[in-house]
């Protein structure tokens, strides 16, 4: 039996090596994919991007608020603030037209006298409070100040996530300016000697706490997220060449010869499984290698494996098994490579989408979250995150690898059952 298995593995390896195009697809394309995706996604994980987005600023205020908005957005590094073009200040009409035509992603229109009116409104409120508390008499009649609005024009093609992040940022800035104005008004009303009472520094600050192991703290970055996610994507893509391999065996007649030989179909499948599992592991180590050693040359953070390579290998191994199981089933059911290849490729993309490779599962609609729980790519991804980001042990990944193994067993049994049924017609 072992001799037959050994020969099956040798045959499968030879078939792979005699197909240079297939080898490039298997080993080079995943590396190109992982580098490309990580480079693109890296900016969303960084606080400072290499490229800045131009934003039109229509400054009708010419006060502290417009100055603060401009300074803080520029200080962020992600934006380049444009308040005039060719020496001419930008008007609201020009800004709205340019943005709606997609020439710029965003225009911010600060209304006239915003800073002055805000200060006036705050002063009125502070005076009223102090008067109510008996600190001073107020005999002035408050002038009516109408509410103001900062207008934001977005390119209709702009993604919702970008819109929300800009809106939140400006909202936060306005709230800070309002707070500072209130403090300033109190200081002014209570006299200079009271200024020490008000500390303008934020009392509450945020600090992100990360899982730590071995006395080290690992901050998640684009590489820590992308390498496991896209490694899984590449591992699951193995189902495409594997299914084509099985379909070709049927078309060439070699499978008929094998079935009539005194060799169990399980040995034939075991030969394919071991070979393709080796390919999965090579893919995995290549991608980890790229993450650790090559990414720094692209100005990307290096993948921090943190001594968890063994556990990561286990996850890659079982993910590979799940992918191979599905490839065997697909190759058994499909009649032609034209059926198996597009279906397999599309299905991997669906699995990746459902599994949380692009959008985190928690951000999906309820129904999709339920589907994601049953997705093998999600099991693999969660297991990778358990190891790499949550610093989990073998116990933490045990449920996921059991699910992946069961998926492999079920799909292979279905394939064998289907094959027997087909041959019994």
């Amino acid at each position, binding site marked *: 039996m072992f001799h037959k298995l050994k020969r099956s593995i040798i045959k499968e390896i030879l078939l792979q090596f005699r197909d240079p195009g297939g080898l490039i697809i298997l080993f080079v394309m995943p590396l190109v994919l992982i580098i490309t995706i990580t480079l693109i996604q890296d900016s969303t994980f960084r606080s400072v991007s290499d490229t800045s987005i131009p934003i039109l600023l229509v400054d009708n205020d010419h006060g502290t608020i417009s100055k603060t908005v401009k300074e803080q957005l520029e200080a962020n590094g992600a934006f380049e603030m444009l308040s005039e073009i060719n020496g001419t200040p930008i008007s609201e009409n020009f800004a709205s037209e340019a943005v709606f035509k997609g020439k710029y992603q965003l225009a911010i229109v600060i209304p006239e006298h915003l800073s002055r009116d805000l200060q006036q409104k705050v002063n009125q409120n502070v005076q009223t409070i102090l008067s109510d508390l008996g600190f001073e008499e107020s005999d002035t009649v408050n002038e009516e100040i109408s509410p103001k609005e900062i207008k934001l024009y977005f390119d209709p093609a702009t993604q919702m996530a970008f819109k929300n992040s800009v809106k939140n940022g400006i909202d936060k800035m306005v709230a800070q300016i309002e707070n500072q104005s209130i403090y300033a008004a109190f200081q002014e009303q209570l006299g200079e000697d009271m200024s020490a009472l008000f500390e303008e520094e934020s009392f509450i600050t945020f600090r992100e706490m990360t899982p730590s192991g071995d006395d080290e703290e690992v901050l998640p970055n684009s590489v820590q997220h992308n390498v496991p996610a896209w490694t899984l994507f590449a591992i699951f893509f193995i189902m495409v060449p594997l299914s084509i391999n099985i379909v070709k065996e049927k078309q060439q007649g070699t499978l*008929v010869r094998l*079935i009539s030989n005194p060799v169990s179909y399980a040995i034939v499948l075991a030969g394919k499984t071991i070979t393709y599992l080796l390919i999965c592991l090579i893919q995995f180590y290549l991608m980890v290698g790229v993450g650790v050693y090559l990414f720094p040359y692209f100005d990307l953070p290096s993948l921090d494996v943190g001594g968890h390579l063994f556990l990561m290998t286990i996850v890659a191994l079982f993910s590979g098994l799940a992918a191979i199981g599905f490839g065997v089933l697909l190759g058994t059911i499909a009649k032609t490579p034209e059926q198996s290849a597009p279906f397999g490729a599309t299905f991997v993309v669906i699995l990746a989408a459902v599994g949380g490779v692009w959008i985190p599962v928690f951000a999906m609609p309820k129904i999709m979250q339920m589907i994601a729980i049953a997705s093998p790519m999600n099991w693999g991804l969660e297991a990778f995150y358990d190891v790499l980001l949550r610093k989990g042990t073998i116990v933490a990944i045990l449920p996921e690898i059991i699910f992946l193994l069961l998926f492999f067993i079920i799909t292979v049994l279905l394939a064998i059952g289907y094959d027997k049924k087909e041959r019994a017609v």
Partner: protein
Amino acid sequence: MSTAIEIKSLYKKYKNADTFSVKDLSVSVAKGEIFGLLGPNGAGKTTLISMLCGLLKPSSGELLVFGKSYKNQSSEIKKIIGIVPQDIALYPTLTARENLMYFGSMCGLKDSELRQIVNESLEKLGLEKFANKRIDTFSGGMKRRINLIAGILHKPEVLFLDEPTVGVDVQSKNVIIAYLKELNSNGMTIIYTSHHLIEAQDLCTKIAIIDQGKIYAHASPSILIEQTPNAKNLEDVFIAITGKELRDVS
């Protein structure tokens, strides 16, 4: 003479088919015979061969290979049969030797023994110079010869051949036929299907003419020719039994 193949009241109907592909077919093949299974397209030859090789399950009836049934001795039968399919059932990107080493191993042969058999077989069929060349560089005749060797590496007791000489040149055909005769002279029973009736007449010791899933004639080529009025050769017998009507199948 002992019986190699025993078929009793064999029926086969495919799923969703209106008619039986093999209908109440009974025949036996003696050990050491070269048994020609001849018939027009769609007669049921491939279905019958597929059942004999264990690739298809019969709808009903009994089928024994050296007294063994596929129902409970499938793996035993597979050890003593060899198949040479009509398609070139080889891996095009592997060399002749790599293909033969693989298929020989799947039949249970160990490397040292197998290497010797592969070398001998390649030499006999004039392919020793091409042992390390890829199959996809071979001519049709060379591929057919490797296809034949892949089916007999484990020296089966019964060899099933589905049109082994289709599409080959005369030289390759002669080598293949001579080799089959040699294998038969060493005791191998051969079940053979072909549309080359002259070749069948020369090669086979017994002929069965099958049409619409039933055997219409079963005897040695000379007896069949003798028994058919005005027949000069097997082709005349074939036409007399199956008619001149076209048998297009889809």
